[in-house]
């Protein structure tokens, strides 16, 4: 089994009860709590790969110079900053999230990173299910690791459709819930295969113990539940088409560990 080197003790997962993170308020509080370590854990747990996946998501969105762009569930702003670079000084980017703590970190990063084009970013605390924007405003939308966490995915898709200009795209990056994990296994190179096969093992034996060091074990156990309850690529395509999008395609990336839904209005 592919092993990562960690200098933290492995703790038995049975020690912690599974916490049901059902309602939006619970999830909002969860993301507020993990905000201080969110970026570091993303880097650690994906071995820095998340940066590549996010660049791919932005490319798929079709964002370009001068555009008005929206990054939903922006968190600490990784995708927002990439969108900002695409839009340039004549464009505009809104980073929206329902976690005030994540937005505070994003705002601080904006100031510290000191790139001229980042002045085109505005942060808004808002709800992906009730977007504070008028119809047909944005040239492109990105959403990274957000759709899995909204309590009403259908409504989120409908709101994204509403605020998009005709002909524009939404690019939604998230974990991939594979329909046929065992079939896919045999087609992958050994290193990636062991990593993907061990997704659940990884969460139980690497992700949660690492998060435990920061006192966030329950919060990262939520990750496993949310992936289990997420939709497959085909189901996501159908969700987008049902919401009114004229085109929807789900791409598997990161050896099948991640997926990116691209939908056009």
């Amino acid at each position: 089994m592919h092993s990562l080197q960690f200098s933290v003790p492995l703790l038995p997962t049975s020690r912690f009860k599974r916490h049901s993170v059902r309602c939006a308020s619970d999830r909002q509080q969860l993301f507020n709590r993990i905000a201080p370590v969110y970026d570091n854990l993303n880097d650690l747990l994906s071995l820095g790969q998340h940066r590549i996946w996010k660049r791919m998501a932005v490319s798929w969105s079709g964002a370009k110079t001068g555009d008005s762009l929206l990054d939903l569930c922006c968190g600490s702003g990784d995708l927002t900053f990439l969108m900002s670079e695409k839009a340039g000084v004549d464009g505009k980017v809104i980073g929206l999230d329902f976690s005030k703590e994540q937005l505070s970190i994003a705002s601080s990063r904006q100031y510290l990173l000191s790139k001229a084009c980042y002045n085109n970013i505005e942060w808004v605390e808002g709800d992906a299910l009730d977007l504070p924007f008028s119809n047909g405003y944005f040239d492109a939308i990105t959403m990274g690791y957000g759709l899995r966490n909204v309590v009403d995915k259908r409504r989120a898709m409908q709101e994204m459709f509403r605020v998009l200009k005709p002909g524009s795209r939404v690019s939604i990056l998230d974990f991939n819930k594979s329909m046929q994990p065992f079939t896919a296994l045999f087609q992958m190179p050994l290193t990636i295969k062991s990593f993907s096969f061990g997704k659940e093992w990884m969460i139980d034996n690497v992700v949660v113990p690492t998060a435990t060091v920061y006192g966030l074990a329950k919060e990262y156990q939520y990750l496993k539940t949310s992936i289990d309850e997420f939709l497959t690529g085909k189901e996501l395509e159908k969700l987008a088409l049902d919401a009114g999008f004229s085109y929807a395609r789900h791409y598997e990336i990161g050896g099948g560990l991640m997926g990116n839904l691209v939908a056009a209005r």
Partner: protein
Amino acid sequence: MVRLSKWLLKEAGTGVNKTLSDILVCPLSKQALRVCEEPPSLISDSIGVSFPIKDGIPCLVPTDGKILDTDDTMKHDNAADDSVNNK
């Protein structure tokens, strides 16, 4: 220097810039919002709700909104920071 000033103004919570206030609408009615300087907030006259602006960031989650009294549509009381929510 301009960027620093803008950042400091936002941190002081004196409100959002004009571009942003033009883009944003009420999350519930999708109608235009009116900027209030003191306390910094965005008013949705269509539904009689005020949304706070904290550290320069507009808070437009529906549960962040505070219902305005009918006598109070043009000014706000001292408890404007309290929000109507189900926490």
